[in-house]
């Protein structure tokens, strides 16, 4: 298998009457053996406003930047959208086009009026849909926009993102400036299992495109998901991705099984899902609450989420607070990502009551909230990607 899956709960021992637990599932992908073939669609807003502040020039530069990163077997397409949608470059194998020709196409992008992002995204995904793909293909739409699509609301984009995702295509969405609808950008990145980000300056565009293309090159297994086969009476709720980006997840339910879709597995990049699980009343002894199966790149790995029902007071006191804290922090960061400072503060109050005001996690959450409160969209976007275990913020 290309990855390990590990589970943990905050309370390994529960009373016979049952309890509500916090659980964590970590997916640890292995080392990449073969570099995937990348299918990249650049979906660029070319509305009139993109010409202010040099955004359009930098978006063109971003496309050229991507060209420097592609291998001969990769495919690239470019779609520009304003009031109209223009397929500037249909999906083309990089080895079959000269850099010069590709650059000329990029410079052909014309300015327009409005922002028909819905049609733009549809067209961008369409350019990739018919390309041959397998478990060694990484498919991405990279969306850049500075405006609102006034004819489609976030729920419609959610549906579109789901369709694109089901074609094996992940969306990396970026909003630039202050006028785009952040809910739409957030939904697109989360639902289509990529990520979403705010770009503060036009100078960040190249980096956004470049990072996304290089990240696609580190895919170990696309189309990853966790299936939780849940025992009778057990309930699962409040499911979030904690890593790589904090995102709320709606599991897909099918009788007693819940499917949690994961972003593509990347070379040695741990993913973490946190959730609440209600353990119902059971006789004393070990009981399995759920079977957890990771499916990725056509392979599977299975583990169990189990607890021991006990009446030993000492055992019942055992509490792994880190698991609770991880869940709470993920909820707080997700809310901060939406700019919901009030909700984040409510969560911090709860965390303070349980873990104490002196806890590092409480203080860190307070600092993050303060930063978002005083900041803007950049701070919100950054709050969802804070690195806690693997590194430090520089």
């Amino acid at each position, binding site marked *: 298998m290309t990855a390990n899956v590990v589970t943990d709960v905050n309370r390994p021992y529960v009373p016979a009457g049952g309890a509500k637990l916090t659980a964590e599932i970590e997916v640890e992908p292995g080392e990449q053996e073969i570099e995937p073939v990348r299918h990249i669609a650049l979906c660029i807003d070319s509305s009139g406003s993109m010409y202010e502040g040099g955004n359009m020039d930098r978006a063109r*530069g971003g496309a050229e*930047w991507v060209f*420097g990163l592609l291998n001969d077997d990769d495919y690239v397409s470019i779609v520009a959208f304003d009031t109209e949608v223009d397929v500037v470059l249909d999906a083309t194998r990089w080895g079959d086009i000269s850099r010069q020709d590709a650059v000329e196409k990029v410079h052909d992008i014309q300015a327009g009026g409005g922002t028909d992002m819905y049609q733009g995204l549809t067209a961008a995904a369409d350019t990739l849909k018919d390309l041959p793909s397998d478990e060694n293909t990484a498919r991405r739409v990279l969306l850049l926009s500075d405006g609102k699509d006034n004819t489609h609301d976030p729920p419609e984009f959610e549906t579109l993102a789901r369709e694109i995702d089901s074609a094996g295509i992940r969306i990396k969405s970026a909003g630039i400036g202050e006028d785009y609808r952040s809910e739409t950008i957030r939904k697109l990145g989360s639902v289509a299992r990529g990520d979403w980000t705010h770009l503060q300056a036009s100078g960040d565009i190249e980096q956004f495109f470049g990072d996304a293309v290089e990240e696609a090159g580190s895919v170990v297994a696309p189309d990853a998901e966790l299936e939780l086969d849940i025992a009778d009476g057990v309930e699962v709720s409040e499911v979030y991705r904690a890593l790589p980006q904090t995102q709320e997840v709606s599991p897909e339910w099918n009788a007693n099984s819940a499917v949690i879709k994961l972003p593509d597995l990347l070379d040695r990049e741990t993913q973490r899902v946190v959730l609440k699980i209600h353990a119902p009343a059971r006789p004393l002894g070990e009981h399995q609450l759920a079977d957890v199966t990771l499916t990725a790149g056509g392979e599977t790995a299975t583990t169990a989420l189990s607890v021991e029902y006990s009446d030993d007071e000492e055992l019942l006191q055992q509490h792994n607070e880190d698991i609770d804290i991880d869940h709470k922090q993920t909820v707080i960061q997700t809310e901060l990502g939406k700019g919901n400072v009030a909700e984040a503060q409510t969560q911090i109050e709860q965390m303070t009551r349980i873990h104490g005001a002196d806890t590092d996690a409480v203080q860190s959450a307070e*600092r993050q909230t303060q*930063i978002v409160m005083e900041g803007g969209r950049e701070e919100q976007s950054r709050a969802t990607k*804070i690195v806690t275990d693997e*590194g*430090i913020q*520089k």
Partner: protein
Amino acid sequence: MPWEPEPGDTIAGRYELEEFLGKGGFAKAYKATDRDTGDTVVLKHPNYTESQNEESVIEEYFEKEADSLERIAAAGGHENVMDLYDKVRFRDVPFLVVELVEGGLELDNVIDEHGPIEDSEQVRQIGIDLADAMGFLHENEIVYRDLKPENVMLKPDITPTLIDFNTATDFDSTGDPSTGNQGTTILGPFKPREVAEASRTDVRQGPWSDVYSIGKILLFLLKGSVPKKDGVNPHDFGADCDDYLAEIVERATQSDYRHRYRNATVLRDVLEEKDPSPPSTASIRYIQAGKQFSVEPGDTIGREGANGPPASITIEDPQGEYISSVQVQFETEGGEWYLVDRSLNGTFVQQGSGWQRVLCGAGRDRLEEKGEDYTDRHGEEPPESIRLEDGDLISLVHPTYGVTFEFKAE
């Protein structure tokens, strides 16, 4: 909660804080006036309030910066490295008093404000200065580890100054500097594979690791962005620079360090010459071990597993720790090869007429302090460097020590 200084405060009865300059993950900085001298300086203190890092991490990294800056100051400083003037503690908060880079802007801000630098000549000049500074740090057993645009300030005359030293450190004895003491790896496009993946690769870090970072900085200057990809030719990314510069960047950023320039000195030299081909090489044969090594200007020989910057060629010390972490360095001038001693015990070179001792100033001072003989066989003060000729023998520590090389110019 630690005390938080504000503009208007006087620190340690001497430094009057003026405007707030900026903050990072570890420190905050203020412009200040030194009442004693009237000079404008910068005061840095740990960023307890606005960093997302834990307090202990902030303090650890703040301390690292203080240590590195003290070592740099002790070595006499370098034109392209920020100077440390003083270190004070006030109301239980540590402060570093450092040089104000007059009119300086961090490289990333330079690019944000003015766009990429299209003039190859300016980029070349910055590269020469950075390579020179990096060579100086290595000589003083400091590894920068984190060369990236935010850590370089550019003055209006385009002179760069290295400013942030909180991840710079002396090498720990495990030879795994990128993980520091906490096992923390800092990733980014400016780091070569052997540094970014230090915990899971056998590839040795060395002077070539900083060569990679400088190469990436040059691409950043030309284009304003940097990919993680290795072996980047600026022309492939749309940069309109001179061919020689594009080729130097491509060579400096190779995945395989054996295809890069060997050290910062070689990189500086090829930039100065505007000629991407590596300079002349020589070779040395380790007689006792029967091993052959190729040598480029700036390459060093040192003890394997030593605390200190990794030498280009490392040798197992047959008698313990008499060989220094950097024992000797090879240099060229006017087409001639020179051996420069950098050791504490000295090096001997045989040029037909007998063994000539070569000893650096620090080594001489140390032997003198210990009351040991530091003179050469004529009873005179030995030179710090010596010109090498084909066939010369080089013995580390002493001719009978058991580590002797035969030098061949090519």
